[in-house]
């Protein structure tokens, strides 16, 4: 009988053509999707051309110019052009031009290109997002992207797995962002380094797909290799009108080995904020008193989905952005943008005095569309609050959920949505 395995071990074993794998083992795996963006793909193209002149499968590569796109300057336009020309030359099926594009980790699930049981690698650290759909998904660099575009496989060290047992149900004003920030606050930014986070327990069924995508998205912020959810009715329902390929979900074996178990009771969670300059500096929003802010960003691969905008819009409804605050809302994709418009959220944002941008990663990484000046503070629904992340080295980013961000925009300070409740 083969070894009892975790979800990650089972997916890796299947893609390595092995009956079983164990933590620490070095394996070579076939990949189902390789992705890159406008920053990481140009160096990957350079390395790719040293290795090969043809891609392993034009349908299994996704190229999404999103970080500096629509191009912010001549240099980034040159980079986007290099990606575009590569996509044309190799007839890459899943190249997302401006107009079709959005933030890679928002659009690829929408497009049904990231499916349960798959191995997905991307030259972007937030590739781990797709664990929400029961895939093994992890970030790699440009040279790994180049090699896997050539041969369709890559190497992994099988990670140990941490079990994250969720119970209960999320209270009002609390969402996926608070679950993952609370977890990072508990274990630290290297608490799951080289390891897999496997979410399980009764609490999973109370989490929407949007919550799960946000949670898996920030697994990297605990140092994790991936963050994976079991496939359930919510996953199947989400995929029913999207999946582009047949897929085979994988479930953990009873008796699989976990390096440790962390329990989180969702009933007990509060809206939280991660203070500068690490995502582990987590406090309840109510603990942060009279902290003036100058900017709010609602969007990113972490919280740029329709449900995030719905939550923010509900807080902004019939309210105004504080006169000393710039509020920037960035839908994660064209689809999110269009739906948000049809549902009236965009009108709510504009009437409140927020600006709405075309989909882009933009300010999250200090690219453009909302860069901070010296000494400025921003409440953002993004994923990193490292020093200088959104602009000047002496600016500050406070990570929070969309409702906290909206409430903070209205009150001009870090605030709980309870404070602006109608």
């Amino acid at each position: 009988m083969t070894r009892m395995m975790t979800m990650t071990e089972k997916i890796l074993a299947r893609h390595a053509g092995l009956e079983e794998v164990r933590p620490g083992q070095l394996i070579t795996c076939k990949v189902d999707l390789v992705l890159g963006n406008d920053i990481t793909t140009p160096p990957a193209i350079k390395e790719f051309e040293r290795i090969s002149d043809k891609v392993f499968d034009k349908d299994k590569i996704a190229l999404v110019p999103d970080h500096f796109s629509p191009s912010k300057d001549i240099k980034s336009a040159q980079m986007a052009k290099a990606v575009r020309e590569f996509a044309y030359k190799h007839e890459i099926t899943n190249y997302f031009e401006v107009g079709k594009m959005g933030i890679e980790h928002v659009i690829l699930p929408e497009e049904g290109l990231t499916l349960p049981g798959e191995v997905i690698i991307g030259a972007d650290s937030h590739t781990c997002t797709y664990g929400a759909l029961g895939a093994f998904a992890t970030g790699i660099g440009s040279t790994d992207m180049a090699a896997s575009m050539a041969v369709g496989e890559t190497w992994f060290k099988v990670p140990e797995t941490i079990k994250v047992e969720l119970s209960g149900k999320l209270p009002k004003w609390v969402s996926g962002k608070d679950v993952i920030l609370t977890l990072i606050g508990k274990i630290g930014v290297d608490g799951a380094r080289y390891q897999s986070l496997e979410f399980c327990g009764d609490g999973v069924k109370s989490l929407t797909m949007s919550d799960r995508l946000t949670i898996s998205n920030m697994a990297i912020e605990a140092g994790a290799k991936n963050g994976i959810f079991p496939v359930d009715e919510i996953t199947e329902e989400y995929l029913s009108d999207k999946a582009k390929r047949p897929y085979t979900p994988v479930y953990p074996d009873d008796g699989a080995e976990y390096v440790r178990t962390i329990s989180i009771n969702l009933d007990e969670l509060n809206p939280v904020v991660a203070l500068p300059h690490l995502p582990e500096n987590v406090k309840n929003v109510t603990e942060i008193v009279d902290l003036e802010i100058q900017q709010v960003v609602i969007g990113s691969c972490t919280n740029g989905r329709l449900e995030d905008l719905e939550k923010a819009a509900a807080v902004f409804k019939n309210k105004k952005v504080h006169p000393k605050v710039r509020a920037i809302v960035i839908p994660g994709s064209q689809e999110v943008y269009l739906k948000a418009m049809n549902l009236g959220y965009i009108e709510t944002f504009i009437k409140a005095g927020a600006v709405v941008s075309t989909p882009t990663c933009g300010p999250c990484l200090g690219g453009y569309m909302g860069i901070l000046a010296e000494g400025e503070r921003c409440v953002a629904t993004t994923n990193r609050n490292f020093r200088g992340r959104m602009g000047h080295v002496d600016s500050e980013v406070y990570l929070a959920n969309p409702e906290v961000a909206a409430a903070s925009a209205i009150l001009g300070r870090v605030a709980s949505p309870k404070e602006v409740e109608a």
Partner: protein
Amino acid sequence: MILEGKVWRYEDNVDTDVIIPARYLNIVDMKELANHAMEDIDKSFAKGVQPGDIIVAGKNFGCGSSREHAPAVIKESGITCVVAESFARIFYRNAINIGLPLIETGQNISKEIKTGDILKVDVLEGTVENETGSVKISTEPLPGFIEEIAKKGGLVQYTKELIKNK
């Protein structure tokens, strides 16, 4: 491969945004990009770094983004090796792939070593030693084909040979 060089010492959780801020990632030329290496954590680094120097840090070095530009600007700056208590996994992978040697010590030596000290590192043997002998560490050698990738100078050469032999 024995390296001896002057130390640049940093604390825990040196992230890829401070190693190379994203505002410069529209720069394609690695030499130009390296002028901004470590800029948001240490403005003196890019000006003062000499070929052969070594970076020493605490835990979780290279956390954050997958940008390969991070190990690439360190290598371009002339740093021959990064010695840290631990590395974030994507940084570790990227460094191996581009041929920047790393030593993961598993213990914090950044407290006993300061910027300007001379450190002796044997990359293949995995040993680290300072001048006074107060720090002397042996680590596990790189496992299996990770060593193969490192010996070939990176993943590109490794993959080329993989394709040729298929």
